[in-house]
């Protein structure tokens, strides 16, 4: 990464978001890009888009329970967590499977959760990614506690929490930002402003000019960034992460993006937005601008694209296969993870549930 993070110590908190790579694939003046590095970011975005498409298709086939696509938000998904270091925490939402995967949460586990298997919430031992928060907003305070604990331990690790603009209306957003500001915790608040909370447009969530400017009220640094520009997203997140790691406290990043798909596969966006608006954001696609830059620089061609998509497709298929091939848990397994130690009441209920199931299926 050759751009200077310090340019972004605190940008403008409203108006035009910070950008490095414009939609035509041109760098803003003064930036240099390492081609291999950008190819890796692009590759990750292709991989998660492949996952997202596959998961959406599987849901439509009835192989997954509800799914919430991040289509259109790939630069946020990758650019944010690409700025983290080993052992840093990620606490995100049900729409952050791309970021979770980048941090080591396996696709197999991500698929498992969506098929209705509790093991989906169980990442590998060395993965410091919380299972996604399904309720909106509660996990932001968790990130404050996670990062505060790391600060107490002197581990040098930080926490990043991802949430949408809708979550900023929740009381826990205020409590999380307030705690982080007061106690100077090493927390990065990463808001993906994707314009809609199910059907509710951004204007319904806040009368502020921006979400980024809310940082000021909590005594922290704010950033407003183009969320479809993976380089800009990574630069501001790296600046925020560096501040956190250096003991300079928390930051709030607002990344302007767009949820190109529905809220979940059960939602119909035509009821609340226009096709003209969708077309506008199709033109602003986060992968296209990177491809344009790489193509101009002679770092992209069709065969490579095909190779990437095929490799991602195989990896995703393999993960699906592994998830579906995993021996099924005994249906009563959910009784075993309520407490650490067996509880007589739950043991009795587990036996009764098994009998009920037996009768119900006879």
């Amino acid at each position: 990464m050759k751009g200077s993070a310090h340019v972004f110590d605190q940008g403008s908190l409203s108006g035009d978001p910070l950008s490095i790579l414009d939609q035509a694939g041109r760098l803003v003046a003064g930036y240099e890009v390492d081609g291999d590095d950008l190819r890796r970011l692009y590759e990750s975005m292709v991989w998660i888009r492949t996952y997202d498409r596959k998961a959406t298709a599987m849901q439509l086939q009835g192989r997954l329970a509800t799914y919430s696509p991040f289509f259109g938000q790939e630069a946020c998904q990758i650019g944010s967590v690409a700025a983290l270091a080993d052992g840093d925490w990620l606490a995100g939402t049900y729409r952050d499977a791309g970021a979770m995967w980048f941090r080591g949460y396996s696709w197999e586990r991500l698929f498992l959760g969506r098929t209705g298997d509790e093991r989906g919430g169980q990442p590998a031992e060395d993965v410091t990614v919380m299972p996604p928060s399904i309720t909106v907003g509660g996990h932001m305070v968790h990130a404050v506690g996670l990062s505060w604990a790391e600060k107490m331990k002197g581990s040098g690790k930080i926490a990043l929490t991802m949430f949408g603009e809708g979550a900023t209306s929740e009381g826990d957003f205020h409590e999380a930002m307030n705690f982080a500001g007061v106690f100077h915790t090493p927390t990065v608040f990463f808001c993906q402003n994707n314009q809609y909370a199910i059907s509710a447009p951004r204007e319904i969530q806040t009368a502020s000019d921006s979400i980024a400017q809310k940082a000021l009220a909590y005594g922290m640094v704010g950033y407003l960034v183009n969320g479809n520009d993976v380089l800009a997203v990574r630069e501001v997140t790296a600046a925020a992460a560096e501040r956190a790691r250096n003991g300079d406290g928390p930051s709030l990043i607002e990344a302007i993006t767009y949820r190109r798909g529905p809220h979940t596969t059960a939602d119909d966006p035509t009821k609340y937005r226009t096709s003209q608006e969708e077309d506008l954001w199709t033109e602003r696609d986060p992968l296209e601008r990177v491809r344009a830059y790489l193509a101009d620089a002679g770092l992209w061609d069709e065969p490579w694209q095909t190779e990437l998509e095929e490799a991602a497709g195989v990896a995703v298929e393999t993960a699906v296969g592994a998830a579906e091939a995993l021996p099924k848990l005994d249906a009563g397994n959910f009784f075993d993870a309520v407490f650490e130690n067996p509880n007589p009441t739950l043991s009795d209920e587990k036996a009764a549930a098994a009998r009920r199931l037996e009768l119900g299926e006879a």
Partner: protein
Amino acid sequence: MARALNDGLRLALSGDERVLLMGEDVGRAGGVFRISDKLRGEFGEERVIDAPVAESGIVGVAFGMAVAGMRPIVELQFMGFSYPAYDQIISHVSRIRHRSRHRFTAPMVIRIPYGGGIGAAEHHSESMESIYLHIPGLKVVVPSTPVDAKGLLLAAVEDPDPVVFLEPIRSYRSITEVVPGDYYTTPIGEAAVRREGTDVTLISYGAMMRETLGAADVLEGRGISAEVIDLRSLVPLDVDTIVASVIKTGRVAVVHEAPRTGGFGGEIAAIVQEKAFFSLEMPVLRVTGWDSVFPLKRSERLYLPNVAGIAEEVQTRLFEG
């Protein structure tokens, strides 16, 4: 009891550097009930943390700390102020073990002073433990004696799962006894038989134990031998001790100051009739607070069960009915 709790907190903080205490006014002021008196001076402001007035944040932040390896103890001042934290407790604290299949856990203690009889303002006298009992993945304990207060607190801190630790406000300074100075734990999930008897089983917990034991004395004077069980732990519940006693006595009264509908008395009654129906001589009696809002000072004596009232109801409804 206040001193026993203070002693327990001190031992927890000195015995394990992962332990920390957080809440409104727990540091400089030593807690609104002085339960954490002097602890900030002894352990520093980084381990005895004065929090902003934000109950959801306190519990949610402590949850994050617990997941990352700390052992937080939080104080929520009054049960009537605990409800903003309810979402964090029911949606995250109690279920992260389940959500992650043991990968992440939240070993933490949520201290909630509760109960009436203190002549306080609205919201300061409530006994709404039922809303916590209904949450899977949460343990709920209530000491009635100073010795148990310390032992249960230390057991709660050691517990691998989250524990809601209810502290009877009325007993903080009214119940005193000699408490061992060393570190000890009282097992969570074991009731205590405070008094043995043969004719009736009186079941209670927390602040109402004093009234219940007083009623047992009155009943003894009237020729009725009451066995008194102090539940100590509401979840997990010591069903065996309850059932053994009911089989012996054949009569049961549950005493609590919480509202009757949806109260723990109903749960105990159901368990007793499931497990010891043919030992019962009479229906299970509930002596409880009312299904009204907890009244202000002038009327609270009308709300709380008292010694004579408990004894009277037990005698007339279980022996003369």
